[in-house]
């Protein structure tokens, strides 16, 4: 390059610069191969891969299982089964977007469901108050996670590995491993089972749990995409240092994310009482793994900042469709886990491939 301009600049220089800069600041205009186009499309709409997989798996099961599978009743049953994973997965989504991970989600869910039950039956508290206590405790659990991660700067994996054990042990110690029977709850504290109530619409049967999952995900989708706070969640997961320099109060947002995740897990605890009928400290053993599975199959990046909460919902539904479809087809349930395992690895491989668009 020899076009150094030492001469005084005039307004015309500005215009010639505008004309000239096309060579530098324009897009790479080289022809894109169809594969590159696909990659660009997937890069800009991260929920499309899981959506395609979901539609494909529905079609496949409709073919191999037959018309029994493709009924409103069967499909709504899948939604009922997915409700809890979908809600816990929403909490996991928030955390994963900040490049964190929350292994304690299931433990918070169980702890809060036990608190809601025991507060009502052991202390004779009004059921509304017991539920409020459970929700508040969920937020507190999340707050503890958040403070340890945002202020003590401990890795999220380690923090939640620890609090997972702590919350779970607390649950067993406090409840003395007691189960509250479904009949007792039905007779004395119907509100605890509210989210298990069935709502028939046409041939389909939904529960309030399904509705609350859909409403929750819709709200979070709005918050993540259309509010400044949501953009900050993405920015923190993307590059925390850049977010901080741009004026995002990273610690406050991180704490809020974990508190909200804890609160959502407590909501999942309430929904789980409706689903199971009883209150038992033995439920939700795998909720953390299931929620991470939904998030990963849903196309979210565990490195943070990428993905959509809709993808998580599709991921949870894919798992639901496979486990339900395989059971209807009548094979060994282990085939489901095998396929889910393959899907997880495929999802991460696709994520890596899509990210190359940045290079």
């Amino acid at each position, binding site marked *: *390059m020899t*076009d*150094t*301009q*030492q001469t005084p*600049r005039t*307004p015309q*220089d*500005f215009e010639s*610069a*505008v004309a000239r*800069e*096309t*060579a*530098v*600041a*324009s*897009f*790479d205009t080289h022809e894109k191969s169809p594969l590159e186009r696909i990659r660009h499309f997937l*890069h*800009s709409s991260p929920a499309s891969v899981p959506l395609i997989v979901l539609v494909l798996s529905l079609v496949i099961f409709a073919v191999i299982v037959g018309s029994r599978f493709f009924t409103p009743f069967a499909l709504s049953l899948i939604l009922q089964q997915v409700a809890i994973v979908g809600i816990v997965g929403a909490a996991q989504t928030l955390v994963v977007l900040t490049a964190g991970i929350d292994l304690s989600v299931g433990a918070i869910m169980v702890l809060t469901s036990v608190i809601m039950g025991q507060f009502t039956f052991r202390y004779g508290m009004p059921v509304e108050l017991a539920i409020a206590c459970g929700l508040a405790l969920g937020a507190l659990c999340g707050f503890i996670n958040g403070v340890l991660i945002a202020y003590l700067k401990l890795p999220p994996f380690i923090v939640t590995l620890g609090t997972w054990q702590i919350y779970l042990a607390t649950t067993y110690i406090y409840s003395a491993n007691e189960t509250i029977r479904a009949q007792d709850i039905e007779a004395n504290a119907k509100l605890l089972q509210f989210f298990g109530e069935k709502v028939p619409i046409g041939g389909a049967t939904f529960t309030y749990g399904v509705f609350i999952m859909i409403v929750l995900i819709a709200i979070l989708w*709005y918050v993540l995409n*259309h*509010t*400044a*706070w949501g*953009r*900050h969640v*993405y*920015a923190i997961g*993307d*590059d925390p*240092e*850049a*977010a901080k*320099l*741009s*004026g*995002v109060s990273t610690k406050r947002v991180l704490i809020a994310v974990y508190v909200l995740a804890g609160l959502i897990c407590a909501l999942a605890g309430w929904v789980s009482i409706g689903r199971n009928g009883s209150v038992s400290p033995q439920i939700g053993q795998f909720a953390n793994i299931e929620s991470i599975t939904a998030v990963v199959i849903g196309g979210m990046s565990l490195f943070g*900042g*990428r993905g959509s909460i809709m993808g998580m919902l599709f991921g949870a539904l894919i798992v639901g469709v496979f486990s339900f479809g395989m059971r209807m087809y009548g094979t060994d349930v282990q085939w489901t886990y095998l396929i889910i395992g393959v899907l997880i690895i495929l999802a991460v491989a696709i994520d890596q491939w899509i990210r190359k*668009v*940045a290079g």
Partner: protein
Amino acid sequence: MSREPILTARGLVKRYGRVTALDYADFDLYPGEVLAVIGDNGAGKSSLIKAISGAVHPDEGEMTLEGKPIHFRSPMEARDAGIETVYQNLALSPALSIADNMFLGREIRKPGVMGSWFRMLDRKAMETKARDKLTELGLMTIQNISQAVETLSGGQRQGVAVARAAAFGSKVVIMDEPTAALGVKESRRVLELIQDVKKRGLPIVLISHNMPHVFEVADRIHIHRLGKRLTVINPTEYTMSDAVAFMTGAKAPPPS
């Protein structure tokens, strides 16, 4: 110069343990100029810049902006006062769009209930403003304002970061090594950007190791050595080798 400086620093001191990074350093920036700050590694120029941009709190000394004393405790306070910094790492969020990045941390919300109750972002307003700003700086071949920053080239990213600073920096823009990571063509574009920002009346503090770039765009050159301002030279009166000689102590500075 008869005009009053817009930004001054007098007797800045910053010690890190037993190391003195700033040793009673002075600094003056005049309205509408490009002031380059050069100095050897460890001369304390980044401490000086951090003090001005609010990232470092000096132990001693005073700073004024438009004649009023300033005491920044964070980069946010400097930003609020109208001093914008383009960091060397650009401080952009790769997965977010150009518009989202330009307004990160100072988003515009929709008017009325949607904004105040539902906190809805006014995407349209932000995209329009971002597009206007990029057009002003001759960067509008970046057509899709909602495209992720990571799909841009290095020079385009620098352009977005500069446009952000120019859009919000009402008084001073600081640029830290803006051409260090760029190729020849892209560096040239960024130097043009600096001129464009200057034309809009904003004074610029340019930190650079690249002498040809410094001599091309700077009106005055602040030479920093051993924690203080050694001298300020006019690039038309001295050569690049003079500047390097002053910087390294091989030659005594001109009496000022």
